[in-house]
């Protein structure tokens, strides 16, 4: 069980949350221009890094707000929590890029 620091509610049990999967996946600006393979890549392919992972969480049984979270998948350590629409903290972004976690 994770203890997840909700930006509004503070540290709460994982059972109150829903995980929304990988964060920062942008809908293609021009979907008609995509090949089937590119569209499938957008819809279905996700990273599975050993290390820093950026993901979306929803505090369903709490404040009912979405937020982003950076988690180290090795030890399940939560590294940062930041707002929807915001970029991940620069240091963690560099770490993820060095590992090729993108």
């Amino acid at each position, binding site marked *: 069980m994770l203890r997840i620091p909700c930006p509004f509610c*503070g540290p709460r*049990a994982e059972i*109150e949350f829903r995980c929304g999967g990988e964060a920062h996946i942008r809908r293609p600006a021009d979907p008609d221009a995509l090949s089937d393979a590119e569209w499938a890549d957008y819809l279905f392919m996700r990273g599975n890094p050993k290390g820093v992972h950026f993901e979306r969480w929803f505090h369903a*049984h*709490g*404040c*009912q707000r979405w937020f982003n979270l950076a988690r180290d998948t090795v030890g399940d350590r939560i590294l940062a929590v930041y707002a929807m629409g915001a970029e991940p903290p620069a240091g963690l972004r560099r770490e993820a890029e060095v590992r090729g976690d993108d």
Partner: protein
Amino acid sequence: MSEPVLRTPLGLRAVVFGRRPSAPAVRLEEAPAAVRVGLRASAEDAARIGVALGLDLPGPPLRAVTGELVVALRLGPEEWLLLAADPDPRPILAAIAGAAEGGHVAAVDLGHRFAEILVSGPAAPEVLAAGCPLDLDPRFAPPGFASRTLLGKCEILLHRLGENRFRLLVNRSFAEYCWRFLEHAALEFGTPAPVTRS
């Protein structure tokens, strides 16, 4: 023509648990019908609505703000639940409508959606801890604390009224489950005895 009768989901039942009847460890009771209004608004709109209702809104996160007529539970950044003892929500909705003029506000009468269960007594925090993932230590959840959370498999709104006194609001279709969950947890603290209410 007979008048319509307002029935609460649990028929206002009440029960105490304890080893000594004179000093029960925990008491469960359903509260009577009351006003519950869900409010969604920006902090600025909420402040104006607060003035109309005699409340200091938006108020701190996960806390109850108490006014003369209404208590507001701040459940989210832009979400409050307004509670009042008089079961007629119309004066409150009218006051909100007046203050919300030109804003982007939703106020919904949720009075019949919830059952309200009061859990009190020295064992009350322990009974809730049987199914609630919150840290009920008063340092984290002091009297006045209010939040949406879980009890067993059902969602509840928890409002701590005092150190050993809690208000639970639960969707009415889950009321029976929630009640039986609490009864089961309370059995640990003694045999149940029904309470006759006036």
